[in-house]
């Protein structure tokens, strides 16, 4: 017994999602077609619309429906600071933390040499143009504290070295409100290695 071709096509299309194998894809397809046709319709339309309307903001590279995203278009933001993050989700977290009123650049990824993701795949060219526009004075590198995020930070720091910009990296250490008793060993060890002078 074989599935009709359009069902097979749907199943193999669902497999493009990360973490979705043949079994999950089949389960999703049956659910969409059998239990939730309205949801399937919404999903199809939303995908269509997103593909047609979304581009990358020409300044910060995040997803946007307009050439300039809302955040970049806001004149009240500090135009001299540029914070570099890996993904749009990181940008949203920083905005939620309400600690920063400058602008952003979203790399849409990180360098990962072992996975074959090199400097060309993370928009470093576009970042250079943005950071060296003459208005930006300080660059804050807020990539993740994973080995890949650290390599990305190092590469960016090397690219921006000797360009007359202040380049900094966000700090790492004990979590705020953290108790030594409950923190994991790696975090605690690094907090000690990177201790800072008082006074």
């Amino acid at each position, binding site marked *: 017994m074989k599935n009709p071709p359009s069902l097979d096509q749907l199943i193999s299309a669902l497999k493009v999602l990360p973490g979705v194998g043949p079994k999950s894809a089949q389960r999703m397809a049956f659910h969409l077609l059998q239990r939730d046709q309205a949801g399937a319709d919404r999903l199809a339309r939303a995908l269509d619309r997103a593909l047609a309307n979304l581009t990358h903001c020409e300044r910060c590279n995040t997803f946007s429906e307009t050439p300039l995203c809302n955040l970049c278009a806001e004149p009240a933001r500090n135009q001299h600071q540029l914070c570099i993050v890996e993904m749009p989700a990181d940008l949203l977290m920083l905005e939620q933390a309400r600690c920063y009123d400058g602008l952003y650049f979203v790399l849409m990824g990180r360098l990962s040499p072992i996975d074959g993701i*090199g400097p060309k795949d993370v928009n470093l060219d576009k970042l250079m143009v943005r950071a060296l526009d003459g208005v930006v004075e300080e660059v804050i590198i807020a990539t993740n504290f994973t080995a890949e995020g650290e390599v990305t930070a190092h590469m960016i720091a090397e690219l921006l070295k000797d360009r007359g910009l202040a380049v900094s990296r966000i700090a790492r250490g004990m979590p705020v409100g953290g108790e030594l008793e409950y923190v994991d060993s790696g975090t605690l060890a690094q907090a000690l290695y990177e201790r800072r002078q008082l006074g």
Partner: protein
Amino acid sequence: MSQGRVDRQPAYVLHAQPYRETSLLLDVLTREHGRIALVARGARRPRSDLRGVLLPFQPLLLAWFGKSEVRTLHTADWQGGVPQLSGLPLVCGFYLNELLIKLTARDDPHPETFGVYAEAVRGLASGGLLSSVLRRFELGLVRTLGYAPAFDVDSNGREVEPDVPYLCGPEQALQRWQGGPVPAQQQVIEGRILLAMAGGDFSELATRREARRLMRLFLGQLLGAQSLATRELLQSISALGD
């Protein structure tokens, strides 16, 4: 349940990638079981303690179970003593990992390779001369994989003499060089430099240079058509420095 159970095995994480919703698929180098694949269940949950432990370039003690190709991580204990790598030493660390992933087979125990790697990681973390750490690692790796000739005796079993040039290349014993053209995939090296390499002494620039060329020959042979992404990254970074 005790099937295939391994406890407290010294190991390093070479590579980690997301797996399913909250897990990690790890490529780890262990001392007595070689390079193996492990699933760390729940390691990507926001508050997972494994997040701050399953880090590359950190000596760990791992326990796992399972008989299939991909085992399941049971516990991961922090060994400590090595600060997180950053900057250029970190890029070099990725180079070590890429070499291991491309040149060693899964489930093929190589305790000596583990020792060579552990020493290299400590070298990178302690701020030693990067090129000398890399050359010592490359030579150690090629040697433990069984591809390097002895550098202190020639093809006739005679001890290498410091002032004599030798012909040197992959998969062949050293030969006294009699002059004439150097064959492809071979290199002429002074005896004293070979002796320094045999003793793991890369303190002199000339030794590091010759070793670098020679290791390129050996690694090129072993890698075949595969290119090294980390070598390209290192080159693009050092090109920036010029």
